[in-house]
């Protein structure tokens, strides 16, 4: 191999030329030309891809099917403190197990997913939308409960594996709860039957009733 002054540079230029000319022929994005013409071509994101949280609801009605019970664990665990929750009250002022206000400040949220890990009710999950820019520096970057609530079908469409796991866990919990309720109901019925039987036995074993008191 010749080793004249400048041969190293020429060898390098072969690489550059190969890349440049290859970018005209290797249109497959894995090879030489990897530019994606956004927004005409959008990247296919992997399933687990996460950007900001959203709230899951079951069924058709967001407010009625919402899984969140306003336990405030995600608000406490969030490292940058971007979640703000206010619990709902009914007409008498009694606390209900649902949030009245659920705000996430996405200019603060870092997408760390700790809220998802800490939620005991499977109600907050990570979305993968990234086109959330706004023209307003403050207001539109705080997203409220209405924008956060998305259906379980949507969750299944963006992350089928995790949605399936969550559904399985919820189903298992429901079955367990139903079985426990059934056992409890049987116990109550058995106790009632036993009490009734005991009362009947006591009635039968009672001595003749005492003479009635004369009415005053």
């Amino acid at each position, binding site marked *: 191999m010749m080793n004249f002054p400048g041969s*190293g*540079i020429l060898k390098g230029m072969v*690489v550059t030329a190969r890349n440049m000319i290859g970018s005209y022929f290797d249109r497959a994005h894995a090879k030489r030309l990897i530019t994606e013409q956004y927004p005409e071509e959008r990247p296919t994101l*992997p399933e687990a891809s996460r950007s900001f949280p959203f709230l899951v609801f079951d069924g058709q009605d967001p407010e009625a099917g919402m899984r969140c019970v306003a336990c405030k664990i995600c608000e406490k665990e969030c*490292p940058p403190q971007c979640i703000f929750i206010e619990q709902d009250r009914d007409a008498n002022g009694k606390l209900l197990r649902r949030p009245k206000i659920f705000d996430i400040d996405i200019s603060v949220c870092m997408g760390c997913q700790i809220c998802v890990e800490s939620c005991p009710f499977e109600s907050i999950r990570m979305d993968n939308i990234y086109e959330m820019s706004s023209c307003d520096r403050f207001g539109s970057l705080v997203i409220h409960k209405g924008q956060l609530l998305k259906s379980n079908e949507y969750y299944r469409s963006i992350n089928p594996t995790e949605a399936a796991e969550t559904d399985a866990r919820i189903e298992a919990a429901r079955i367990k709860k139903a079985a426990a309720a059934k056992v409890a109901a049987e116990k109550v019925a058995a106790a009632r039957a036993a009490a009734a039987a005991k009362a009947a036995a006591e009635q039968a074993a009672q001595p003749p009733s005492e003479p009635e008191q004369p009415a005053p």
Partner: protein
Amino acid sequence: MSFQPHTFSFNESDGAGASTLDVSLGPQHPSTHGVFRMNVRMDGETIVKLQPVFGYLHRNHEKLAESHSWLGTMPYTDRLDYICPITNNWAYAVAVEKLAGIEVPERAEYIRVIVGELTRLQNHTAFLGFILGDMGAWGSALMYAFREREKILDLFEWLTGARMMVNYMRFGGVRCDLPVGWLEKARAYVETYPAFLDEMEQLLTGNEILLARLQGVGVLSGERAINGGLSGPVLRASGIDYDIRKVDGYGVYPRLNFRIPRGTKGDCFDRFMLRILEARESIKILRQAFAQIPEGPTLNPAVKQRGFKPPVGEAYGRIEGPKGELGFHLISEGGEKPYRIHIRPPSLINLTLLEEMCLGTKLADVMVILGSIDIVLGEVDR
């Protein structure tokens, strides 16, 4: 002893009839790897005095950590050395596991090694791009390096959900298991990587301009490197055989077979070539890890992540990050929040001898020396 040039100023004649020029290099500068400032005093083009100025990216992670739970600091460690978030997570997890005496299951250790070595690969790939950018070859090598690095980041996104700020390690394991098909894809990718390194070597290593700019520049002897607290590739390029993966033997590294490359002259070219050689060794490690990874749990079930309360005490845990020794010094009072977390940043300590290395060199060499140390400002300033 500090001098404050504002833009530039000519000093009065320093006795020998010549006057020196004070220049502030940075904080906005394309070659300083972030917001980093150096006050230099030059006699012509030769550096007579150099003072690095830090603090432009100071976000005080250490104070923030005192107001979060132990788990809540994990996403913040991603943002320290933002080129290699996974190894930052790993260092923090190792330190907490040392503090609390937590065991990690085997599969989790292998997963940690796999993603850690992939992080090392992408860091050294990015380094190749950055140092060429620092020298003025802005664009070509950088884009080839980043094109390669994207493939690794895609693997991370598939595994953890985020390309960079992964928040993946947990105390006693990793957050989630490898998805179906991930290992095969990673294995296939690692087989294509040596071809990329060969191409980069053909592009760069024979290049006469690069050799002239890197060889003989910024020479650092081994004893000065040890005394200055340098670690990582910079220390090894000065001839010292010290790699924490071999010395401490954390994780499953004792079972894996790999060599430690060592430099001979301690100049910038040694640091450059050493990282290429380290990348090749990482490929060897990855192939062995892919072959040896067992089935099993990925998280120690005895450890509560939320509401985690380590025992009272303190610990210092460290790993061999791609930039050097990344350590966490933790002090716990037994509560849910740490009493004190101190981060030992390799990039900051590697800058201790910057002035020594740069005295007597030309201004253009300062950029090359700084580039060869491979700093990230997120880590320097925390």
